[in-house]
């Protein structure tokens, strides 16, 4: 007990109040800084401050919703992404260039190999010609091509000759060895023409109608300068009437078929053939014969020859005119014509010659409208139809041979009412109408971009963007319209036609289709419409 008392006696100084206070203060000073450092490292004060701040904000300040603090990306903002096509990265472009160059070099090497392998032409037999002085005077000066007996001076092969080897003259004629000309010719030219169909002069044995027996400037001793000119001497429409020939070719035209212009023998045999119309091949003259050439692509850059076979034979939507009676010859004049693309009539008239009544489409069973009536009723026409020569007429949009897209159009197109917003850049209309801002800008201030706006709100944008983006054909008629800007008479909503009831004013207009009640728009003084779909939170 004494020991304990001694130890307690040591703490007597604690009875002094000042000492105790000093001790407490010192203790605090020693503990607080390490505590502070520890708390700071654990980020306790910052967190408490944030919580307090939030509480103050919630209790005393305005009420809010989470979207105000944290940025919410709305669907509309996503839609404003530009439609412009993305470009390839530069590395890949360089690679493509390199491969192209390599391919070119390969081609060159192959051609050189071919030339080396090709057999060399054989030397021709040389016939000794007569000296110029011995020809009769009528045949001088000599022409380019000579009949071989004539060249050698062997007149006796054909003509009757006297003892001295001179040709006998009876009156104006020089009598031959045989009574008929063809017999004489066939005695040397031993291939006799014995096929199914004969050319009439061949049948009659009138070889001299086309050929000159002595000399000529053209090959095969022809009488005219070129083959087509020779043929036309009988088959020209004017001369044919006198000679009573049914088959007629007109060569003096604006748009010529190249094989006809160069040589008739590209397709026809001038003497005999096993096939109708004296054609060379067994192919049907209506279509397969044409496709024999027109399936080869020579210069893809020139676009003069395009492979049509896939368009005609395997395409989804086929043009009936291609498969009708005369097939290709329904629309084209095979030998050439005064109208573009060798058509029988000018572009639009040619199409309207069939489409002057309602025509049934075979694939879908849909009735196509009477286009002639439609164009006559409405005075504002689409430019390709109005300016046929410049813009290309019906063929600017349609492919008359057939296509994989509906209505035989050239590119993707739908007749459906809705098309999600971003896809709309792919529709065919945009290949000519390239004003991108019309469909991407929400607010428009100038007339250049669109006149279809309410104040500054772009109404083209409003109609085409979003999940329920409408297609062009919902409002516009691509052929003809009563009003300018090609606004159609009806909107087609899945089979029901609703009239648009468009009215134009000086600074705007109005329309009242099925989609909404009568809505006005005004460029200068924006209008608020009753029942407008744009609703804002109050």
């Amino acid at each position, binding site marked *: 007990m004494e020991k304990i008392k001694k130890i307690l006696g040591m703490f007597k100084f604690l009875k002094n109040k000042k000492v105790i206070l000093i001790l407490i203060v010192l203790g605090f000073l020693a503990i607080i800084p390490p505590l502070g450092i520890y708390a700071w490292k654990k980020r306790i004060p910052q967190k408490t401050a944030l919580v307090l701040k939030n509480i103050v904000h919630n209790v005393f300040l305005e009420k809010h919703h989470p979207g105000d603090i*944290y940025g919410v990306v709305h669907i509309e903002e996503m839609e404003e992404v530009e439609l412009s096509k993305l470009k390839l990265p530069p590395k890949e472009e360089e690679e493509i260039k390199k491969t192209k160059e390599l391919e070119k070099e390969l081609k060159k090497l192959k051609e050189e190999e071919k030339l080396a392998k090709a057999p060399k032409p054989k030397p021709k037999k040389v016939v000794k010609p007569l000296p110029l002085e011995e020809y009769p005077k009528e045949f001088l000066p000599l022409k380019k091509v000579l009949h071989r007996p004539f060249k050698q001076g062997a007149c006796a092969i054909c003509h009757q000759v006297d003892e001295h080897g001179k040709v006998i003259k009876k009156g104006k004629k020089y009598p031959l060895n045989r009574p008929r000309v063809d017999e004489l010719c066939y005695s040397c030219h031993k291939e006799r023409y014995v096929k199914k169909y004969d050319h009439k002069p061949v049948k009659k044995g009138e070889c001299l109608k086309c050929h000159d027996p002595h000399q000529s400037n053209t090959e095969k001793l022809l009488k005219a300068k070129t083959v087509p000119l020779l043929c036309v001497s009988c088959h020209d429409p004017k001369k044919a009437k006198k000679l009573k020939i049914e088959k007629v070719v007109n060569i003096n035209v604006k748009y010529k078929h190249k094989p006809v212009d160069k040589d008739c023998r590209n397709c026809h045999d001038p003497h005999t053939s096993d096939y109708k119309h004296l054609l060379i091949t067994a192919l049907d003259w209506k279509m397969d014969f044409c496709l024999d050439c027109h399936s080869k692509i020579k210069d893809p850059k020139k676009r003069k020859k395009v492979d049509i076979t896939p368009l005609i034979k395997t395409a989804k939507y086929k043009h009936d005119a291609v498969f009708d009676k005369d097939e290709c010859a329904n629309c084209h004049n095979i030998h050439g014509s005064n109208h573009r693309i060798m058509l029988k009539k000018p572009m639009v008239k040619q199409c309207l010659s069939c489409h002057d009544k309602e025509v049934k489409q075979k694939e879908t069973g849909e009735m196509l409208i009477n286009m002639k009536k439609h164009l006559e009723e409405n005075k504002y026409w689409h430019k390709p139809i109005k300016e046929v020569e410049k813009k290309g007429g019906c063929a600017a949009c349609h492919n008359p041979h057939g296509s994989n897209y509906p209505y035989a159009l050239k590119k993707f197109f739908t007749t459906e009412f809705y098309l999600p917003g971003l896809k709309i850049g792919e529709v065919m209309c945009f290949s000519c109408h390239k004003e991108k801002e019309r469909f991407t800008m929400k607010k428009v201030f100038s007339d250049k971009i669109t006149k279809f706006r309410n104040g500054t709100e772009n109404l083209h944008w409003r109609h085409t963007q979003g999940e329920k983006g409408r297609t062009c054909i919902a409002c516009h008629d691509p052929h003809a319209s009563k009003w300018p800007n090609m606004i159609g008479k009806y909107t087609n909503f*899945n089979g*029901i036609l609703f009239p648009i009831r468009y009215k134009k004013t000086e600074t705007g207009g109005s329309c009242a289709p099925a989609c909404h009640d009568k809505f006005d728009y005004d460029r200068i003084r924006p209008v608020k419409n009753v029942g407008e*779909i*744009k*609703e804002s*939170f109050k």
Partner: protein
Amino acid sequence: MRNILILLCVGVCFAFIAEAEQKVYKLNLKVPANEPVEIIQPAVNSIHYEDTASVVIKIDPKKIEKLEMITHFQVFHLDPDERIIYKNKPKKRKEKFNFNIKEDKLYYCKSIELRYGRNKIQVIATTKDGKKIKKSVEMYLSSPILRAYKYPPPKYKEIFFHKEKNEKVCEECHDMTVNEKKGIAFEDVTKSNCYKCHKALTTRYKYNHAPARNWLCATTCHIGKTGRLNKRLEGKSKFIWPEPQGPECYRCHKEKRKEWDSKRFHHDPVVAGMCDKCHNPHSSPNRYFLRKPSWYLCTTCHEDKVLRGHVVFTFLGRPHPTRGYKDPSNPKRELSCISCHEAHNSDNNFMLLKPFNQICNMCHKK
């Protein structure tokens, strides 16, 4: 022989009795009394589905001097459902109309508004002698969704007007034939024959359905055929419509059907093809032609969500709000059921817009 004779006698007697009955029945044919006032339309104790009706009154202009019509509503206190619908309308229980009587005119027409439940039309005519003649007609406006008015009392029956017999009455003034071309709407809407009597259907509200506004009635919806659920009405009216009306709707809304068929879960009324339940096919004050604003519409059937609360609860028992706030995921509209749920079809459980683990993140980010 006796037996045969007796049988013959009995047979002859029966034949006579039958003939006698027929004769009696023929004699009892009701001959309409030549009354000065008669209500032709609406029929007595008929059920209506749209909140407008047209009244036709026939009078004898020589006898009658003054004509007055009063419409009564049954309403004593408004249901919570009705409070939404009749928010801005006056709560009057009587409405009066006066007719101007011309000397040659026999028939007088007027279109009136109806309210859900029992409606009474009273016609008061004063003759030139000073007598008052009173006539009244009762009818019932029922609704496919409002629970109180879904099942009308058995007294009321479905009676249709458009039969050949009834239409003869109107033929003097109105052209009763159908003058629509199938698939092509009128350039001028007022030329439609339906417009003249039924125009109140599409002029009363803000949002109008396209075929109704363009008056393509008889060729698109009221085609005169009956469906699986209303075979009982076959041949009762010229312009009856099939129920379920789904196939009729899908004829125009083709893409919807393609889109929905590929989904996993379906809302029951959609499967049944009862589009009519939520959408009013003619016109409505709400968007998408809904019969009520979307939150109120959903909770008429899914009532437990209101009583018990929905989704999650705080410690104090307060549920997650389902209305009354701005929708954080779509700032254009108010928070309601359709900001989380898909109304028709969905690929996700509980018909949610997104998979379950992402749905909360639409609003509660971080």
